[in-house]
């Protein structure tokens, strides 16, 4: 039995049909993800339009420099992920592993910076709750920070899961589970990672940069 026939599950006619099915499957999952983040984005749009001054004032307490740096880190991780998928398509095992490891490292750097930002917010009493304290600001600024933690927190959870997915892919690649004919898991993991990147592409300007002018 050749490696190609062994990697095509019996319900599929051929490898291409199997690949198309897995791509469609992850996209349907990503649509449910769009709707989950969509609820938070809807809350954000509604309350930002209701309390524009309070949101703009609260946004100034986020560190735009760190946010921009983290955006570059995440875009770099998308590049290394795309390079890993490319390597898997041409059957380069070490290229795949290298791309995935770089992506994991960049993902961890992002989470580290995020953790530092969260710690700063705790020190500055900007975490919603009984200790929230923003002198001279309207009360709705607390709502901004509730949305900030909910949106970036849900995003960070996705990053942690993504790092776990990529680590699994590294192990699979090292065990020679992929070749030029079969690398669907790498492509699907890549689509998930890029999606999480896209969520941050929207979060960065909406949370960090509003009311800067």
């Amino acid at each position: 039995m050749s490696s190609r026939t062994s990697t095509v599950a019996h319900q599929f006619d051929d490898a291409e049909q199997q690949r198309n099915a897995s791509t469609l499957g992850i996209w349907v999952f990503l649509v449910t993800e769009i709707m989950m983040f969509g609820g938070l984005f809807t809350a954000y749009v509604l309350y930002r339009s209701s309390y524009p001054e309070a949101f703009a004032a609260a946004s100034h307490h986020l560190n735009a420099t760190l946010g921009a740096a983290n955006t570059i880190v995440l875009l770099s991780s998308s590049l290394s992920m795309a390079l890993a998928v490319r390597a898997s398509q041409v059957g380069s095992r070490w290229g795949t592993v290298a791309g995935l490891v770089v992506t994991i490292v960049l993902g961890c750097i992002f989470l580290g910076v995020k953790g530092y930002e969260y710690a700063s917010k705790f020190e500055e009493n900007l975490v919603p709750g009984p200790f929230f304290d923003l002198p001279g600001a309207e009360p709705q600024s607390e709502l901004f920070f509730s949305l900030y933690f909910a949106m970036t927190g849900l995003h960070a959870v996705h990053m942690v899961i993504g790092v776990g997915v990529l680590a699994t892919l590294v192990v699979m690649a090292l065990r020679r589970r992929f070749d030029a004919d079969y690398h669907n898991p790498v492509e699907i993991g890549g689509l998930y990672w890029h999606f999480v990147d896209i969520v941050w592409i929207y979060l960065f300007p909406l949370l960090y940069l509003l009311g800067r002018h």
Partner: protein
Amino acid sequence: MASHVTSRLVLFVIFFVLVGLTALTVWVAYQDLGSWNAPVAVAIATLKAMLVIVIFMEMRFGQPLTWFAGASGVLFLLLLIGMTMADAMSRGWLGVPGK
């Protein structure tokens, strides 16, 4: 099997375009465009998202059904935001209690 492969050059060029658009987002956020700051920020983010989807996520090689699935997500997101805002913004139109 016809697997499409994107060249490294294209991937790097798209990456640098994305970094450039990030710089543009930051720069434009400090310009006073009146009520246009938010729409411009969302427009740039959408352009970046489309580049990621079409190039990095290889949607340009995608099946029509995959396009359809992804577009349905965008459609329902716009419905969710659009109908919520239509409700919120039109509540004051009628001067009646319990609006």
